[in-house]
């Protein structure tokens, strides 16, 4: 459903993303991993249309989306969450999500439907959907859920999840990972997930794409990637054994 081909982004003399190509099938969960500064967020920004690529092509269900404004790309079915949640703090929780439901879909729902869809999305991520719920009342985990609910409310085909579970405890982390898996199962949404916590990511992704210095250094199923010497060298390091154990537990 997504076909990225030779995607490149240069900032002045610095190449943040260099000839990245990959394909994604409907309903797949792809883990996008790599060290800090390897080009993961830039790749997200390029797909979502927040940045214009220097070269390359991005096809969503056969349609070229490079050059389209971000709001049109959202209407074509791409949603994203941010690593650092960016809610509208002066709007209520429901308003935050309803706004996305109202504006984010190709066909604009009625006011009542948008609120109903917002409550549905909030239920999906286990957040309170009362009118009185304020953004300030949510903790770190709650804000990440709100971010996810807002993305889901646009009824995306493709979800770009910049999750960063870093601030969460073990239970919350697994809940968040399971939530992504459940969303894929229930709604058939294709997901690209950026995450540093390999223990959570490797449990649920179908495939990994590993970036380093803006280039793809490995791609394949978790069991392959976790044993790839190059990936261990530039990214997994001493965690390699733990990651391999996670992957083994999953397949076995």
């Amino acid at each position: 459903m997504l076909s990225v081909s030779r995607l490149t982004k240069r900032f002045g003399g610095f190449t943040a993303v260099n000839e990245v190509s990959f394909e994604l099938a409907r309903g797949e969960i792809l883990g996008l991993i790599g060290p800090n500064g390897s080009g993961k967020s830039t790749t997200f920004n390029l797909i979502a249309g927040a940045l214009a690529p220097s070269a390359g092509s991005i096809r969503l269900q056969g349609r070229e989306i490079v050059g389209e404004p971000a709001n049109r790309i959202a209407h074509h079915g791409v949603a994203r969450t941010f690593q650092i949640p960016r809610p509208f703090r002066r709007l209520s929780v429901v308003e935050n999500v309803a706004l996305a439901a109202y504006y984010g879909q190709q066909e604009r729902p009625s006011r009542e439907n948008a609120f109903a869809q917002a409550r549905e999305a909030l239920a999906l991520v286990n957040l309170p959907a009362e009118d009185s719920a304020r953004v300030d009342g949510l903790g770190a985990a709650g804000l990440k859920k709100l971010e996810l609910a807002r993305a889901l409310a646009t009824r995306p085909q493709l979800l770009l999840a910049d999750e960063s579970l870093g601030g969460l405890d073990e239970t919350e982390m697994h809940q968040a990972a399971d939530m992504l898996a459940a969303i894929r199962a229930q709604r058939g949404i294709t997901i690209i997930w950026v995450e540093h916590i390999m223990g959570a990511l490797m449990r649920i992704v179908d495939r990994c794409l590993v970036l380093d210095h803006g280039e793809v250094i490995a791609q394949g199923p978790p069991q392959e990637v976790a044993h790839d010497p190059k990936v261990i060298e530039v990214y997994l390091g001493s965690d390699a054994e733990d990651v391999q154990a996670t992957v083994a537990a999953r397949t076995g």
Partner: protein
Amino acid sequence: MQIFDSFLLEAVINGILLGGILALLALGLNLIFGVIDVVWICYAELIMIGMYSVYYAHNVYHWPLALAFLACVLLVAALGALLHVLVIRPVLGAEPINQLLVTGGVLFFLQAVATLAFGVEFKNVGVSLPALQIAGMYISFARLIAFGVALGGMVALYLFLKRTYIGTAIRAISQDRGIMPLMGVSPNRIFVLTSAIGGALAGLAACLLVLQYDIHPAIGLSFGPITFMVCVLGGLGNMVGGFIAAFIFAQFISVGGYFLALEWGYVLAFLFFIGMMFWRPQGILGGK
């Protein structure tokens, strides 16, 4: 001296009525700044154009006053949208000082155009409303109407921002501009719409002011600066703050004018403003 005489009460009431107009003036400017992050230095000149439009529609082309008012609001709303598209949009990413200068340039442009097109002599729509006499106090009927309409306009804007999706989007975009496209909102369209609403508020103010003041090309200078001070005192971009500041300012002008002379009322208000800028430069309800 007896403090609570009816003249003082009259001054306080007139202050409240003046506060309503100042609050309306500040509202449009705060809306624009809060959402687009640009100050329309030429805001009062849009009002001036609106006042002329009422004069020409009503006194020259003999439209009914209500129709002239409606045309004024629509015209200034269109001017607001045009100002955004032609002047603001090209400098949206520029330094704030450049944005100030460019709208400052529009101020002088509009003044010059008005002088060339309408001449320098004072014009008046000639609608004189009686002063109401209540318990020995004189209350200007024009001011009372202006106060009521200003309050009504503010409530309407509040409901619009609170109850409609476009309103919610306007409130949202003022908090995080960058994220809006990801929800399928085009910031550009919201900005043009907000500019048109800001213009419509200026047009509404023009309709109310035209009942009380003569029209001339430099009329904007007599309430432009005070509008900015009200906005800054309340916290630029903060509509509630602007509302409170408008009534504080109006009381200084009105009650200060009662105890001393009218001009002293303005002097006191400005001194208070300067003092406040030392104490709370971010404004009454401003952020940082």
